[in-house]
């Protein structure tokens, strides 16, 4: 049944996180609807990865509320959290491929662990997903260290979408890729969101890619979201931070590191 009122998938309220005396997230608020694709942008070191890791449960927030499907995640036990994690597909910023496993074993990992597919079926499915991310089946028995950076990124993407999760998390999926591969990845993200009906949260520095893959954009700066809005409005925004970020101008008045 289609409901008229959109369902809230992820809801952050006054979420804060510091490391030592360094405040990374400062009372963050964010609401993500089911089926929405949101992009988080912001300068390097502003805490985008920390935010994603808080949502996945790898980083424990100091305070505030984080609800997924209406459930307060800080109340979950470790075991419940593990079960909860079947809802996520994550592409880590550094790839985080298992270097002791082959490419197909990496991609099929979730299929075998979570969906309990047997080896043969899992391998078939893995090879099918490899073709979707335009990876040649001949590398399926190679190890991650034998692949180029761009190929590793595609394997990481394949692993993230393999189990067809409800929530897709992409930490800089296209950084360091050539424009053609970037486009392939962008299209795949769009397809995953549309076909699977998944909710997607992507971190990206690439405005062109953000406009393609995301419905909404949130700009993180000094622990706050200084701007949130639809992706197609981003270039027309009058907000100083947004204008400077989009045009690559440094915010001298507010950036502490005065690199000129």
């Amino acid at each position, binding site marked *: 049944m289609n409901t008229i009122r959109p369902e809230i998938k992820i809801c952050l309220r006054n979420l804060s996180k510091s490391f030592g005396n360094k405040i990374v997230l400062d009372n963050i608020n964010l609401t993500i609807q089911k089926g929405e694709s949101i992009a988080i942008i912001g300068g390097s070191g502003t805490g985008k990865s920390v935010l994603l*890791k808080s949502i*996945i*449960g*790898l980083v424990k927030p100091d305070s505030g509320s984080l609800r997924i499907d209406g459930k307060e995640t800080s109340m979950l036990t470790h075991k419940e959290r*593990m*079960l909860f*994690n*079947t809802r*996520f*597909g*994550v592409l*880590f*910023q*550094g790839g*985080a*491929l*298992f*270097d*002791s496993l082959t490419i197909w074993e990496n991609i099929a*990992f*979730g299929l075998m*662990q*979570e969906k309990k597919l047997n080896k043969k079926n899992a391998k078939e499915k893995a090879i099918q997903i490899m073709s979707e991310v335009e990876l040649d089946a001949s590398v399926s028995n190679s190890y991650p260290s034998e692949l180029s950076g761009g190929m590793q990124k595609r394997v990481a993407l394949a*692993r993230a979408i393999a189990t067809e999760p409800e929530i897709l998390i992409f930490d800089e999926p296209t950084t360091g890729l050539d424009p053609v591969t970037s486009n392939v990845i962008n299209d795949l993200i769009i397809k995953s969101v549309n076909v699977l009906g998944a909710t997607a949260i992507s971190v990206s520095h690439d405005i062109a890619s953000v406009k393609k893959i995301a419905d909404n954009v949130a700009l993180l700066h000094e622990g706050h979201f200084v701007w949130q809005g639809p992706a197609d409005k981003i270039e027309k925004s009058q907000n100083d931070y947004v204008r400077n970020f989009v045009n690559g101008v440094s915010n001298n008045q507010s950036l502490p590191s005065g690199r000129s």
Partner: protein
Amino acid sequence: MILLMRSLGHSLVNFFASIGKIGIFTLRAVFHSCNPPFYPNLILKQMIEIGFYSLPVVALTAIFSGMVIALQSSSGFSLGGEKAIANVVVWGITRELGPVLAGLMVAGRIGASIAAEIGTMRVSEQIDALETLSTNPFKFLIGPRVIAGVIMLPLLVIVADIIGIMGGFIIATFDLGFNPDSYIRNTWTSFEFIGFISGIVKAAVFGFIITIMGAYHGYYAKGGSQGVGQATTNAVVSASILLLLFNFILTAIFFAQ
């Protein structure tokens, strides 16, 4: 003075904090090693890694120790002669040198590699990735290593015992000119069950200590390759010290009068 006391108190607090952390880590490792899901092929792989590939180093240390005991005791007590030497070799190898030397060798080899592997997985976010794929790193990474360590170390020590005693035999017959038949007979009569068993129990405990220390330091590694290097060193040093400490405690328990 106050400053000195304060920093002393500080390091004391840190010391007990890390004891607690290791304690909790150990309990979690044991709990998850004993509860399903198990990963039989991962356990098998680790058994081969820890047991089979450690055979050369353990065999070499064992044969030289057996030889050296025979040599030393022949120059040490010339009175007892043949019987005393067979006796010292058997006792020395099965009770102490077999388990301790095999343990120290494996601590260097396996403790280091476990810390490096798990540490690399930690700093490259592979452990995070495991958790997002609903796989518990304690069951998937740590359990198989601990189980394999506890099973394989005793087997390695049995091999070390046999080869060590053979080392003693080689020196006794070829160098000291003893009669091989009577030396073997003396070896048999010197063999005592409790000494052998104490060595095997020690080995199982050492296997546990080595794998836990490797896993612990790897699991909490941070800060890139330098952090992994640090974790590796800490794993080997702490495993070796704990191993010697527990060797003393177990000896005291087994042979308390």
